[in-house]
């Protein structure tokens, strides 16, 4: 008899406490979830170590122990400090302009990672894709101005594959060449040595950016004829070419005088 009201009170109390705790935790959870989504926005110039999983997966995998930082022989990697670096607090990253990745053959940072946040599947450092170098300021790049700097090209660990110098005519002088540093995404590891060595003071003209920022999405619906010689449609209908000239309906040029084609197609095509 006496237990009946008591248990009722207990139930009411339990429900109240549970509701209060659930509400509090929902609020706390929302704050935490907001922090979690913020953490995924990695600053563009904070590069993850070689083998790092995509940022979303990385934040589920990295326990922030700093073992990769300790085993990096060049002190390239640092752990992000709250408020100072922008990367999720305690996660490893490097800034190419400060200390680039030296691309060790044995990849000690990956070997040190206990969780696989740095993927053990990466065994050849040339397969690393830490980012992609982009010649981001052609107005300041000395080579692009027609001078011969070439430093980014020469320090590149995968020289002539990741960066090539493409010769083009220098229209300013009329009789010189421009050796345009050109990055190839299939070979660039994103180590950042080009950015580090760029001779410009302060910001570099070539920067390593995360691949999702540096690369456009391929327009797969366009067919590149030099890669795919097969015609898009079998038996393409060949309509007659219409050129200005006698026998067509656009003989009269503006102004009313007879239009004389600048050149004649061989065999009189277009008639």
């Amino acid at each position, binding site marked *: 008899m006496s237990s009946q009201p008591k248990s009722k009170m207990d139930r009411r109390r339990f429900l109240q406490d549970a509701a209060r705790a659930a509400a*509090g*935790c929902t609020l706390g959870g929302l704050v*935490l979830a907001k922090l979690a989504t913020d*953490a995924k926005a990695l600053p563009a110039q904070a590069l993850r170590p070689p083998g790092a999983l995509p940022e979303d997966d990385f934040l589920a995998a990295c326990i*922030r122990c*700093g073992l990769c930082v300790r085993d990096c022989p060049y002190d390239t990697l640092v*752990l992000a400090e709250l408020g100072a670096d922008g990367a999720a607090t305690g996660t490893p990253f490097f800034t190419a302009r400060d200390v680039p990745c030296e691309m060790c053959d044995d990849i000690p940072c990956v070997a040190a990672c*206990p*969780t*696989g946040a740095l993927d053990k599947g990466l065994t050849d450092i040339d397969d690393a894709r830490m980012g992609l170098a982009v010649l981001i300021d052609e107005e300041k790049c000395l080579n692009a101005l027609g001078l011969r700097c070439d430093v980014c090209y020469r320090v590149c660990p995968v020289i002539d594959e990741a960066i090539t110098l493409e010769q083009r005519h220098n229209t300013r002088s009329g009789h010189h060449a421009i050796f345009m540093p050109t990055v190839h995404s299939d070979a660039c590891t994103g180590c950042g040595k080009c950015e580090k060595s760029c001779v410009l003071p302060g910001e570099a003209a070539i920067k390593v950016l995360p691949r999702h920022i540096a690369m456009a999405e391929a327009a797969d619906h366009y067919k590149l004829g030099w890669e795919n010689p097969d015609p898009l449609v079998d038996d393409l209908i060949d309509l007659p070419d219409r050129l200005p000239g006698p026998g067509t309906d656009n003989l009269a040029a503006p102004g009313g005088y007879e239009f004389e084609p600048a050149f004649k197609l061989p065999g009189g095509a277009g008639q």
Partner: protein
Amino acid sequence: MSRKADIPVGHDAIAEKGWLSAHKYLLLRRFSQAFFLAIFLLGPWFGIWWVKGNLSGSLTFGVLPLTDPFILIQSIVAGHWPETTALIGAVIVAAAYALIGGRVYCSWVCPINPVTDGAHWLHEKLGMPKGWQPKANTRYWVLAMVLAVSVLGGVIAWELVNPISMLHRGLIFGMGFAWAFVLAVFVFDFAVARRGWCGHLCPVGAFYGLLGTKSLLRVSAVDRAACDDCMDCFAVCPEMHVITPALRGRDEDTPLILSPDCTNCGRCIDVCAPQVFRFTHRFDDSPAPARPEREKNTPSTKASRAA
């Protein structure tokens, strides 16, 4: 107000056993906390790399991996299956704490413990009110919330705000603005809720508590018959609710403190003049008669309490 309430906690124990003996476990605990911090700092400060990493994950002598099992569980529920190294490290840590008591981590290792103890010391020194007291089981709600955010957000959620790893990592690798989180815990415990953080909210403590539910190492109120109601053990215990069932139990009740909330800090052993408490194991069944029935005190009236 009883005469004894004015006497500093542990006064009788110091008189009875000497200062050193009355601070034995406190000193050992501070030494242990300093030791676990120091071995992580040997490398960065002196170039002696016996231990690399931090409390989240470490490598000792190049062979022994240790991983925080709570962080690894968040990682797994967030959708990442870790490498074997981390799994082995977590199993070793979990097994050790399951044996010696999960919350031994809290009182003997965690770098936030000196912070909250400091806050409590100042709190007592200034005679602050105990303040808002969230329920002790709030920590399990926080624990559930952390796991939920880890699942839904696909991140190791608690590491975004965990003051423990922020302080530990900060001391070893560089702090940045993370000291603010540590200061927040101090201020919370000092001004908002007495013993509020470790005892009511911290999900790491909740996790380690659950981990050590069946642990071997236990404090026992084995000589509870000798208790003279000085209340010093309740005054020093950061989780005072764990004492009552053991100390006030009847003859047939176990004198073992079996609550997973007990941090095995040993302060109750220190401050007890009649030496009621001691460390033992959970299968210790040495007889522990209860205190003889006491004559009921007449409940103090409001007037006498005010006097």
